[in-house]
C-alpha cells in the first residue's frame, strides 16, 4: 500500500462513507417509491365490485376481477399440492441420504433450477400439456407453477431436515423405530415449522408469477368452469390490462398489483413471525 497522509485517508474515508450511505439511500428510496406507488395507484381500484364482479367489456367502466382472483387461487392451490408432495419427498431424500452421489447431483441442479427462467418452463408445459390437449388450460398453468415450486420446496425441506440433530434420529432408531417411522414421527415433527415456512414462501413466490401462465393458463373474461379450459388469473390479467389503452383497465391493473403485493408481503411477514416464535420457544425449551 502506498503511504497516504492522514488527511487524505480521512478524506477518502468520508467520501466512501457518504457514497455508501447515498447508495443505500438511493436503493431504499427507489424500493419505497415502488411500493408507495402501487398502494397509491392501486387503492383507487379497490371496492366491493372489484372482489365480486366479472370484468366489464373493453372500454366500459366498472366490473371487477373476481374471476381472476378465484382462478389464481385455484391454479396456485393445485400447484401447491403437486409441488409440496414431490418437493417434500425429494427434499427428504436430500436431507436423509445426503451423502449419496444422486443427492449431490440433485442438490446442485435444484439450486440452478430455482433461478431458471420461468418463461421457459411455460414453453415446456405448453409443449407437453397445451399442445396434446389442444387447449390452453388452468391445469397447464398449475403444472407450470408446480414445476417452479418443486426445487424451492426441495431445497428448503432439505435445509430444515439438516437442522434436526443426528442424536434425535439415532435415539429413535436405537429404540427400534423403523426408518420411515423415525422420519415421520421424529424428523418431520421437529422440522415442521421450518418446512411450513418453506412451503408458504414457495406459494408466495409462485402466486406472483406471470410469465409461465402466459401460454399455459392464458386468461379468460369468465368464471373458471373447468380445469381443461383457459382460466382467468390475476397476473396475466394485470399484464393485459396494463398494456391496454383503457384508463379504467390500467387502474384495475394497479388494483390487481396491489392485491398481489399485499398477499405476497403478508405471507413473507407471516413466516418471519413464525420463525421468530419458533426460535423463542426452542431456546425456552433448551434452558
Amino acid at each position, binding site marked *: 500500500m502506498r503511504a497516504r497522509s492522514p488527511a487524505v485517508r480521512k478524506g477518502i474515508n468520508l467520501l466512501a462513507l457518504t457514497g*455508501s450511505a447515498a447508495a443505500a439511500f438511493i436503493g431504499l428510496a427507489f424500493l419505497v417509491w415502488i411500493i408507495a406507488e402501487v398502494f397509491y395507484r392501486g387503492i383507487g381500484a379497490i371496492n366491493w365490485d372489484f372482489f365480486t364482479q366479472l370484468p366489464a367489456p373493453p372500454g366500459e367502466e366498472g366490473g371487477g376481477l373476481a374471476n381472476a382472483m378465484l382462478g389464481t387461487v385455484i391454479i396456485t392451490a393445485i400447484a401447491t399440492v403437486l409441488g409440496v408432495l414431490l418437493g417434500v*419427498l425429494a427434499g427428504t431424500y436430500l436431507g436423509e441420504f445426503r451423502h449419496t452421489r444422486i443427492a449431490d447431483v440433485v442438490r446442485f441442479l435444484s439450486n*440452478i433450477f430455482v*433461478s431458471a427462467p420461468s418463461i421457459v418452463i411455460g414453453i415446456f408445459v405448453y409443449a407437453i400439456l397445451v399442445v396434446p390437449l389442444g387447449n390452453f388450460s388452468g391445469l397447464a398453468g398449475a403444472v407450470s407453477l408446480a414445476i417452479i415450486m418443486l426445487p424451492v420446496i426441495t431445497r428448503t425441506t432439505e435445509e430444515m431436515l439438516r437442522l434436526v440433530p443426528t442424536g434425535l434420529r439415532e435415539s429413535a432408531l436405537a429404540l427400534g423405530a423403523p426408518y420411515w417411522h423415525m422420519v415421520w414421527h421424529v424428523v418431520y415433527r421437529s422440522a415442521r415449522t421450518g418446512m411450513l415456512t418453506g412451503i408458504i414462501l414457495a406459494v408466495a413466490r409462485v402466486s406472483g408469477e406471470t410469465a409461465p401462465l402466459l401460454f399455459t393458463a392464458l386468461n379468460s373474461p369468465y368464471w373458471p368452469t373447468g380445469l381443461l379450459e383457459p382460466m382467468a388469473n390475476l397476473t396475466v390479467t394485470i399484464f393485459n390490462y*396494463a398494456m391496454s389503452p383503457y384508463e379504467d383497465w390500467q387502474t384495475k391493473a394497479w388494483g390487481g398489483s396491489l392485491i398481489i403485493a399485499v398477499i405476497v408481503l403478508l405471507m413473507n411477514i407471516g413466516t418471519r413471525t413464525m420463525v421468530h416464535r419458533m426460535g423463542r420457544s426452542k431456546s425456552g425449551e433448551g434452558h
Partner: protein
Amino acid sequence: MDNSGQAGNASQWRDALFKISTLGSAIFILGLLAFMVLVLVIYAWPSITKFGFKFLVSTEWNPVVGEFGALTTIVGTLVSAALAIMIAVPLAIGVAFFLTELAPLPLRPVFGTAIELLAAVPSIIYGMWGLFTLAPLMGDYVEPWLEEHFGFIPLFSGPPMGIGMLTAGIVLAIMILPFISSVLRDVFKMTPQVLKESAYGLGATTSEVLWHVVIPYGRRGAVGGIFLGLGRALGETMAVTFVIGNAHELSWSLFSPANTIASTLANEFTEASDDLYLSALVELGLVLFLITFVVLGVAEWWLQKSAPKGKGA
C-alpha cells in the same frame, strides 16, 4: 410371534416404500430437467435444421417471410442484464455496507427485513412501475439530459422515447437490487469481528476496512451472489417486457427500443401462426435456458467450492 413377524414385514415394506418414494422424487427432478431440454430440442428441431448455426448470428427476424435469427434478442438479453448488474452492484455494495457497518444498530434488522421483503415482490410489479412511472420520467427528463451532456457518445444519442434498453436495464437493476444486497449483507456479516478490529486497531479508516478486509474476505461469496443475480436478470420476463419496446433491431443507442429473449417469447409466443415461427421461438427459449444454466451453474459451482466446510451450499 406371528404378529411381530408380520409387523416386521410391514415395516420393512414401508421402509422400502419410503426409500423408493423419496429417491423417486429426487430422480424425478433430474428426469424433469432432462425431459425439459429434450422437449425443447424436439420443438425447436425444424428451426435448428433449417437455420443451423446462422440462427445465432443472424439479425433477421421476419415472421412474414419465415426468416429467423436470434442475434438481436441474444444481444438484448446480455446488454440489459449487464446494464442491470453495472447499476445494481455498486448500489448493493453501498446498501450492504450501510446495513452491516453504518446504520444505527437498532435500525439494522429493520432495514435488513425491508430489503428481504422487497426481494419477494413479484417482478410484474416492477414492470408496472417501470411502464407507468419510470418510462415517462426517462423520456421527459433523464434521456434528454443525457443526450444534451453525453450525446457525443453513441450510447446516449437518438430520440428519447422513455421505452427502451436503458429503462429496461434500470428496472431490472432495481428488481435485483434487494436480492444482491441481502446476499452481500450476509457475506459482509461473515467477516470475523477480530479481523475488522485488528485493522481498526492498526489505525485503518472505515473505508479501508471495507476495501482491504471485508471485501477481500467475502470476495468469493460476493462474486457467487452477483452471478446468481445475473442469472435472474438474464431470464427475467415481466420486469423487462413492459418497458423494452419490443423491436427486433440492433442499435448503439441505449434509448432505442430493443428486445430480450424473454420479452420476445412473452410478446410473440401466443401469436406464432405457423410451425416454423413457433419452432424458432422455442429455439430462443432453449438458447435462454442454456445461457442461464451456464451462468447459474458457474455461480453454484463457485459457491460450493468456496463454502466453508461443514456448511452446505
